């Protein structure tokens, strides 16, 4: 007995670069949010003069290492983008994994730095300091979740040289997170 032929419904191919541009637009909004917070931090610090963070000391070792780690992570995620464009799946997973590890290290260092600096909630600097640094940690965590999901989908075979958009979109968000940290590094930690 022959089995009936099964006709699957027509699938809709994803639009090329849709995820990439969508992520880019959303990232632009998040970057503006962070830059506004940093701008107000700088304004408040300038207005307070030498009184700003006078009761606390911000060491530079951790921020410098964080910057170095994030710079390295940019290389890693673009390695993943390059690899998926060349259908090198193993290198894609390694690149994404290394980026996640460096991101986790960044979050860990930030929490360590918060404890080290010890700005308490009743200090005038606290709202802006934690809005800026906490907001950025949230941005990095969001980017890590994004990378995790596109990595998971890459494992399922969704992304390849024909459709590398998901990995490229994650790279856009990650690059923006690193660029925002570069601004924070200078404005909050170096200029103090």
């Amino acid at each position, binding site marked *: 007995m022959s089995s*009936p*032929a*099964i*006709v*699957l*419904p027509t699938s809709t191919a994803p*639009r*090329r*670069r*849709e995820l990439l*541009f*969508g992520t880019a*637009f*959303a990232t*632009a*909004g*998040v*970057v*503006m*949010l*962070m*830059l*506004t*917070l940093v701008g*107000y931090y700088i*304004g408040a610090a300038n207005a307070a003069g030498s009184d700003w963070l006078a009761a606390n000391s911000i060491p530079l070792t951790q921020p410098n290492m964080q910057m170095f780690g994030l710079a390295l992570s940019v290389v890693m995620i673009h390695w993943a983008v390059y690899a998926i464009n060349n259908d090198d799946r193993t290198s894609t997973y390694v690149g994404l994994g290394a980026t996640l590890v460096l991101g986790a290290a960044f979050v860990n260092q930030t929490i360590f730095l918060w404890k080290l600096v010890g700005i308490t909630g009743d200090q005038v600097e606290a*709202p*802006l300091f*934690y*809005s800026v640094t906490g*907001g950025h940690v949230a941005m990095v965590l969001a980017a890590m979740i994004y990378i995790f999901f596109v990595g998971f989908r890459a494992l399922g075979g969704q992304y390849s040289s024909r459709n590398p958009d998901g990995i490229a979109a994650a790279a856009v968000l990650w690059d923006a997170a690193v660029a925002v940290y570069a601004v924070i590094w200078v404005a909050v930690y170096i200029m103090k």
Partner: protein
Amino acid sequence: MAVTDTTLPQQAAAGSVVSESAPSTPGELEELIGTADHTSLGRLYIGFSLLLLAVALAIRLVIGVDLATDNGIFGSYLAMIDPSATIALVFLGVMPALLGLAMVIVPLQVGSPAIAFPRAAALSLWAWLVGAGIFITSIALDGGVGGGDYDAAVLGNISLAVMMASLALGATCVATTVITHRPAGMGLARVPLFAWSMLVAASIWIVTVGSAVAHTVLGHVAADSAPGLAENFQIGLAWLMRGPAVYMLAIPVLGIAADAVARTTGRPLGNYGVFQGLIAAFGVLSFGAWAQGPESLNTVLWALWALAAVVPVLALLGGLAESLRHGPVKTSPALVGSFLALLALLAGTLVGVLMALDTAGKGTLFDFDPALLGQAQTIFVVTAAAGGLVAASALWSGQLWGAPSDSTSTGAAGLVFIGGAILALTLAVEVFVTAGGKEANAAIGIGEAVGALLMCVGILGALAASLGAARKSYENDVAADPGGMTLEWQVPWPAVASQRTAEIPPINSPYPLAGDPEDN
């Protein structure tokens, strides 16, 4: 027969045994709530935002009556509720309404059966609606953005952030649609001008709203009292309600007017790139996140920026008027409405020029109150955006609601413009009578109340006209009008996504359906 050829309802009708665990067909309400169809989402956005815009105008009407009766209604609460009413006009009214219009029309103009990220667009609608409901509630509880009750003010602050994030999400969907859903051959230089204006507007909305959300975060983190939150709004968010940032609301109006002229004249616009450039230039000049602090009003850059914003509006008005001169024109409510909207926008930018001249004179030339002028400017721009929306609703009534507009929409547009002009001019006049006493305040209050009332009735009239067209379409099979030059005129009315399955052929002309045959 292939197993997927028969749907469950068909099997049931044919007497087939349907398993008890088979999913039931969703009802109309369930389908509406769960829809990701861009037409339904856009209609819901427009319907709810027109309703909420009427509510915001009703609040402004009560403020006017309160002023006319020497603070007999609100008393000292007047100063607290005023900024909330203005915020409501923008984030509950014109911005979501224009976004809803774009959700319906933009995919049609670029020949796409769907909007980019349809589920994100649905999330944008419902999250905005929830945020808007909470914001209205918080105003009623003496909260909003300047209220005296701390818990209600926190609620207002959070709901404002929810609304702004939702609108930015919707704008992301619209902008991505224009960038990535175009058919082969339709480069960005060939997209219809409303779609182009929405790409520019959505980009500006996303970055501006992103910056504004930062202040709601700061307000939530830093302020530990209701006055603290009100001060946070005055210092951190008042820039949204004056030039240049407030101009962003009216960027789509430029595209609506250009498409209305092309549709009415039946001819492609000449110098297409120039029109695109003017819209883009106005978009750039609408970016106001760099001028947030009150001190920025005293800078040369701000004065030059305010002066420059007039140029693209004037040039576009002139260019469109020139296009109308080249042949017979059939006057339509859409054409008249969109030109009146451009004039209202021009008036808003001219108020900015007054502020700039005052800045140039270091406050000695006219010695205006920038806050009052800013309010007048906001009302002019809101009038432009609301009037532009009503004009667009008449222009694309078939695509939006399934039937052509009737005379109700003409009357509604008239009321919106007359009311907006009265309201804005009253606020502008207030600048000159700062020490006028009770009589002057009463006159100003009456002017504000009358203006807000007329606008409110006009907006409700536009809503009624839309519902009337939708009902006409439901009761009678209205044939589509294929007379337009861009792709949205080639879809059946109403523009339901499931009916649009045909592949779009490669496009070779900015007006691919009625342009120069050699181009196609």
